[in-house]
């Protein structure tokens, strides 16, 4: 499999009569987007713009999606939702790099997910650096939470797909090529390099905690093998936003830095075999079954090593440790990527599960760290939930509009793919 990614750098976003890219500026036609995303389940959909440096707070953020367009090869982006379920991950895909669609809509009262475009909070989220089309969704009284969630989720994909069309005639700034050899070819080409795979854990526990693979709710899958290039075409998308700091948005799935780093070292000091996706379900039996299948696949692939990334905290710690220990007991070296809930002073036990075999750990930071976010001139969505969001507490929202919260309320703050700047190092 071979995928070419053509990046079109977006440095600003504006509304215009037509959706197009000109000299790095993404012009968005409100009419065109609103026509494409219309959903009879919702009472209103409004569009706003949020640029880096703006005095804007977006909350509660549901999802963030990078606009991509398949121009050559099998299938289309976001298979199972926007495109049919043809296999993706080969051919040519164009990326509006630096642009994002951010959906916001209050599906449950305690929902969080803050993106500040300026101020101290901006340092804690990667989406303060993107030029964002914010899609604000309002639902009628009485719409079920499941329908509400599905509507807002799909509105985001549709908005991303319609503005991605602007890439079709735009000048490409840079090209990247990703090749994924089959197992036999990979072994022949790199017989002396250690065989390394990526175990990609997806949170799958129900409403606001779900992930989809080619349109399938991933709680219903058994672990399977995927090409890393499939993620770059949106084979995995997010329905997951509660406790926003360590949830993977669709943007994260499209731009997974572990996949990027493994590719960067592929053929140099390791042979990147592929991606084993697995889930994080609610029952212990599911956790056992999925970790058993993950270990079985790793064994069948003859791996020497694996990177394992977690999504979320708490019960996924159990999945993480099961995956790690089962691989280690097969002689496969592992590195786990997680984050921490170590208390506000950082002094408490970081994970809810642990094992001596998990002796190589990368952390995305401590989600209990407290921050005060000053008031912004504009709030897209609603700041009312600041007192009750995860990481918020009584009095979180001050009269002046500032919010004091744990950073777990900030979208992507302690991302467990390493898609942010926080970590901990031994000194």
């Amino acid at each position: 499999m071979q995928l070419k990614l053509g990046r079109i750098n977006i440095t600003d976003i504006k509304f215009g009569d037509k959706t197009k890219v000109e000299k790095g500026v993404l012009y968005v036609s409100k009419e065109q987007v609103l026509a494409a995303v219309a959903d009879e389940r919702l009472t209103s959909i409004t569009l706003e713009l949020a640029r880096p440096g703006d005095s804007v707070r977006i909350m509660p953020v549901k999802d963030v999606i990078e606009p991509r367009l398949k121009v050559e090869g099998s299938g289309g982006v976001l298979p199972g939702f926007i495109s049919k379920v043809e296999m993706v991950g080969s051919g040519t895909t164009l990326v509006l790099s630096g642009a994002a669609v951010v959906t916001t809509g209050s599906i449950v009262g305690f929902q969080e997910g803050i993106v500040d475009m300026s101020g101290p909070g901006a340092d804690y989220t990667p989406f303060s650096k993107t030029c964002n089309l914010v899609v604000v969704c309002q639902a009628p009284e009485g719409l079920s939470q499941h329908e509400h969630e599905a509507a807002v989720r799909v509105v985001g994909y549709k908005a991303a797909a319609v503005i991605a069309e602007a890439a079709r005639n735009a000048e490409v700034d840079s090209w990247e090529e990703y090749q994924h050899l089959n197992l036999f070819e990979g072994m022949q080409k790199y017989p002396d390099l250690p065989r390394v795979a990526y175990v990609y854990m997806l949170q799958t526990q129900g409403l606001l905690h779900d992930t989809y693979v080619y349109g399938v709710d991933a709680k219903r899958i058994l672990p399977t093998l995927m090409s890393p290039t499939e993620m770059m075409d949106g084979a995995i998308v997010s329905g997951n936003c509660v406790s926003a700091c360590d949830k993977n948005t669709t943007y994260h799935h499209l731009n997974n830095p572990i996949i990027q780093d493994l590719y960067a070292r592929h053929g140099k000091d390791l042979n990147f075999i592929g991606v084993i996706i697995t889930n994080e379900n609610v029952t212990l039996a599911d956790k056992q079954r999925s970790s058993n299948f993950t270990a079985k696949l790793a064994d069948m692939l003859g791996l020497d090593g694996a990177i394992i990334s977690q999504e979320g905290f708490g019960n996924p710690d159990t999945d993480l440790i099961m995956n790690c220990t089962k691989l280690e007991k097969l002689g496969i070296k592992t590195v786990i990527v997680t984050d921490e809930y170590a208390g506000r002073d950082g002094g408490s036990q970081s994970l809810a599960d642990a094992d001596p075999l998990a002796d190589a750990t990368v952390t995305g930071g401590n989600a209990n760290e407290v921050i005060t976010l000053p008031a912004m001139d504009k709030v897209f969505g609603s700041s009312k939930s600041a007192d009750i969001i995860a990481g918020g507490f009584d009095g979180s929202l001050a009269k002046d509009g500032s919010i004091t919260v744990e950073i777990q309320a900030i979208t992507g703050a302690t991302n467990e793919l390493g898609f942010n700047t926080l970590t901990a190092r031994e000194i």
Partner: protein
Amino acid sequence: MFQVLTNNPKAYNWWLKRENKQVQVVWQEGGFDSVLTAARDLVHLGYRVINHPLSSSIKPNQTPYKTLILAQGTGLDYQSLSVIEAAIAASKKLGVFPGSTQSILEDLQFMDLEMCREIQLQ
């Protein structure tokens, strides 16, 4: 035999309506930690935990509700004991739910029910 241990009125009523003779629905008075403690006592009596006590991303200090399903076994299940003790430790570390409005409490009840209602008991 299964025991559904809950302090969530929505989950209690939902499981009662299923009228499954294999399932005993037990109301547990108190907060999140009281359900965990009662479940730990059952584990020591030979029950094993079906759903993880920290299921969902809503932390023990962010919701007062918990529904735990346990299956009657014949001896001490060490994995169940390990996860319930770790959950109790995590709950103690994170502190107590500070309270909220009625509509938020109802959303939290709904989310707790969401996390347990599709579990296949077999």
